[in-house]
Structures are given as structure tokens and as C-alpha cells.
């Protein structure tokens, strides 16, 4: 299984990332997930979310998760990009790609990785209030 993890302050360009996908004849399904910062947090309007991380541990925990996903499902490739720093409303903070022979495992693995990430990968967010 191909596995890529990137934790970066650079903006996420989902279409450029999608274009860089490598391809094998056993692949039948590609699922992409983009997590985008929404305009409110607990009912209050926000301008952005400021993400921080324990980067070394976040990379290690992502790596464990992706390896575990590769044991649970027959995946060809998993790529994850998480942005840090100030991410404005409407911009993606998370991009993920799962490639597999059939769609069921791509969907299942993608959701599982996101759910587990929110449990174990040390990344935190601080809402930046909208200017009044």
C-alpha cells in the first residue's frame, strides 16, 4: 500500500493533489474527502480556525492509523494532508484520498480514518472570531 502523510501550513489544493494520483490496473475506486472550515462554530460566526499540532506525534499517529486501515481493507493507496495555522472559512483544513479495488472499502476506510484521526491525532483548533 502506498501511504503519504503531510502536515503543513501551506494551503491545500485539492485539485492539484487529485491530479498527482498514481494509478494501477487493480484500482476501481477513488474516494476524496475535503474538510472545509465552516462559517460558524457553536453558533457564533467565525473568520477562520487556527490549527496547531504536536507534529511529530501527529505524523506517527497518522502513520499507525493508515497502516491499520491497510490491514483492515485491501487498499492500494492512502494519502492525507492536514493543514496547520490559520485556515479561513471556506478553505480546506483536511484532504484525504483512499484508492482501492472496489468502492465499499474506499468509503469505509476513508470514514474510519477520519473518525480515528479525531480520536488520536494530536491536532487542536482555536476559532478566530469574525470581526464585528
Amino acid at each position, binding site marked *: 500500500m502506498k501511504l503519504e502523510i503531510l502536515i503543513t501550513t501551506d494551503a491545500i489544493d485539492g485539485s492539484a493533489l487529485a491530479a498527482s494520483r498514481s494509478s494501477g490496473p487493480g484500482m476501481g475506486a477513488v474516494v476524496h474527502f475535503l474538510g472545509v472550515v465552516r462559517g460558524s462554530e457553536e453558533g457564533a460566526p467565525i473568520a477562520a480556525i487556527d490549527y*496547531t499540532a504536536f507534529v511529530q506525534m501527529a505524523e506517527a499517529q497518522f502513520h499507525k492509523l493508515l497502516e491499520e486501515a491497510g490491514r483492515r481493507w485491501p487498499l492500494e493507496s492512502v494519502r492525507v494532508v492536514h493543514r496547520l495555522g490559520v485556515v479561513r472559512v471556506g478553505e480546506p483544513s483536511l484532504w484525504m484520498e483512499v484508492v482501492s479495488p472496489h468502492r465499499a472499502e474506499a468509503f469505509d476506510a476513508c470514514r474510519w480514518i477520519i473518525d480515528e484521526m479525531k480520536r488520536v491525532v*494530536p491536532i487542536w483548533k482555536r476559532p478566530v472570531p469574525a470581526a464585528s
Partner: protein
Amino acid sequence: MTVEVTFWSYFADLAGTGSGKFEVPVGTPVDELLRSVYRSHPRLGALRNSTLVAVGVEYQGGSYLLQPGDSVSLFPPVQGG
């Protein structure tokens, strides 16, 4: 031995510092280290029930026995995505 404890996210604000050094004997359980940490930083102690603990880059429970070279991290529930 000296163990460096790092406080992540708003735990650094509550501690008033990003990290601290603590003297403990080799083989001290994490739980005992945490008691020292909470004596120095009582505002962190108030959140002990929701605190996550890592040694190096792995999660560890309170019974983990600290070894020379271990670094400890304390942080609140994670919120990525």
C-alpha cells in the same frame, strides 16, 4: 533523572509555559510524575480527567514506567479535521 514534560494547545496557557522539567527516579510510573506536575500546575490538575498523555509519540497509561530519555506530553482532547 530529569523528565521534560511538554504542554500542548491550551494546556500551555493554563500552565503558563510550554514545558517543564521534573526530577523523578528511573522507573517512576507516569501517574506519579503527573502528581508532581499537578502540584506545580494546579490548573492542569483540574482537567486531569480529560487529559491525554503521551511518552515520545505514543499514548501511554498511568502505569507506564518512565525510562531515561523519555519525554512526556500532556494535552487536551484532539480536534483535527
